[in-house]
């Protein structure tokens, strides 16, 4: 992490909305830049910020942009409640408070010289996008890249143009599926695990990174292991209620782990005994 002036981790830094892009009916991508003209916070793929909407509330949102772009922070947010609605209704120029970045990142380095399998479900593609950027910007360091993406329906697909562009890179495979096809969809229909059989990579030399609803990650991780990917090479992004993001409020505990500082990225071999515990 770059050396920055000691900032109180509880105080939001003022950022301004630079751009709002509507991805789907309820999902928007916000680009924020620091209000005082300094560089944006550096982040590792997989980390998140706490975004504060004046007088409304604060939310943990994964950073979804390019780590190499130092003048901005990008977030893809799904509007599901009051706070997220407040966030996605921001207009260009509005102030948004940013705390962070927090948490552990995806172990992208682990995949150097190996095949990388990125499995995203729904909005889970947002926290994985920085990984994809990282690999594609440094293509020669990594083996094959396989991106498997499942969404509810074709209308819920994020980053469609980028998905097509990613597929054109060498040794890069992009497979997309939906749970409900609708009328004009001619692609895969079925859960994301049904795409595994088409992935062209060697499980024994693969690192997998999965993000999506917890049930989805459970099914995915289990199937990956059956396919021959080692448990220590499967990574998940976990989520729990979060209030402070710095390990003081106690809300994000998952077993002995604080999702905000021990995670959100965890290896499957650490998560497996916890995932099967109901109401942990």
């Amino acid at each position, binding site marked *: 992490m770059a050396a920055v002036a000691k900032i109180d981790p509880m105080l939001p830094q003022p950022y301004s909305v630079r751009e709002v892009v509507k991805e789907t009916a309820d999902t928007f991508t916000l680009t924020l830049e620091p209000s005082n003209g300094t560089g944006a916070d550096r982040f590792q793929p997989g980390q998140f910020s706490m975004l504060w909407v004046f007088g409304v509330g604060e939310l943990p949102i994964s950073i979804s942009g390019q780590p190499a772009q130092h003048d901005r922070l990008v977030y893809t947010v799904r509007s599901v409640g009051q706070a997220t609605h407040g966030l996605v209704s921001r207009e260009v120029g509005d102030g948004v408070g940013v705390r962070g970045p927090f948490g552990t990142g995806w172990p992208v380095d682990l995949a150097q010289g190996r095949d990388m399998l990125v499995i995203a479900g729904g*909005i889970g593609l947002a926290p994985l996008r920085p990984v994809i950027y990282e690999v594609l910007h440094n293509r020669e360091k990594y083996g094959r890249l396989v991106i498997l993406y499942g969404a509810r329906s074709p209308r*819920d697909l994020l980053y469609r143009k980028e998905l097509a562009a990613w597929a054109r890179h060498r040794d890069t495979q992009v497979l997309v599926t939906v749970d409900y*096809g609708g009328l004009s969809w001619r692609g895969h229909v079925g*859960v994301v695990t049904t795409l595994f059989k088409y992935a062209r990579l060697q499980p024994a030399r693969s690192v997998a990174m999965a993000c999506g609803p917890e049930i989805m990650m459970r099914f995915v991780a289990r199937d990956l292991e059956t396919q021959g990917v080692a448990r220590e090479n499967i990574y998940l992004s976990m989520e729990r209620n979060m209030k402070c993001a710095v390990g003081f409020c106690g809300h994000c505990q998952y077993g002995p782990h604080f999702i905000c500082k021990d995670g959100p990225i965890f290896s499957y071999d650490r998560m497996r005994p916890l995932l099967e515990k109901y109401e942990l």
Partner: protein
Amino acid sequence: METLERIIAEHPFFAGLESHFPNLLTGCASNARFDENTYIFKEGEEANEFYLIRAGRVAVEIFAPQRKPIIVSTLGEGEILGWSWLLPPYQRKFHARAIEPVRAIALDGKCLRMKCEQNHDLGYEMLKRFAQILEERLEATRFQLLDVYAVR
């Protein structure tokens, strides 16, 4: 040109079969092609074949009144389409439509059933493999039912 026997023997579905079995199956096999947007079979029809898909994508559909048919899953290269030939009443439960041009090996159901009755070892091998497929499809279907991406 690949013989049907070799295609069957090398198909992942039949991996591990004793070497004389593919020959038995070849007698029930034929090449099949379907144009884009044609129905391979429809619900209610007699289930006479199952297919090893070699290329293209097939949509498994259910139709309901006042709605266009709903695609519940798609199957592609390397996958098996159709199992209703295996169990009575040998009737198709869904539509299957080629949504891309499809090439497949069709295996005649009646022919296969007869051979399985005569040779229970072959029957057992077939059932083991279909049980595996059914289990995978059931798990995937249950997962799909959960509608995990919906907002609660």
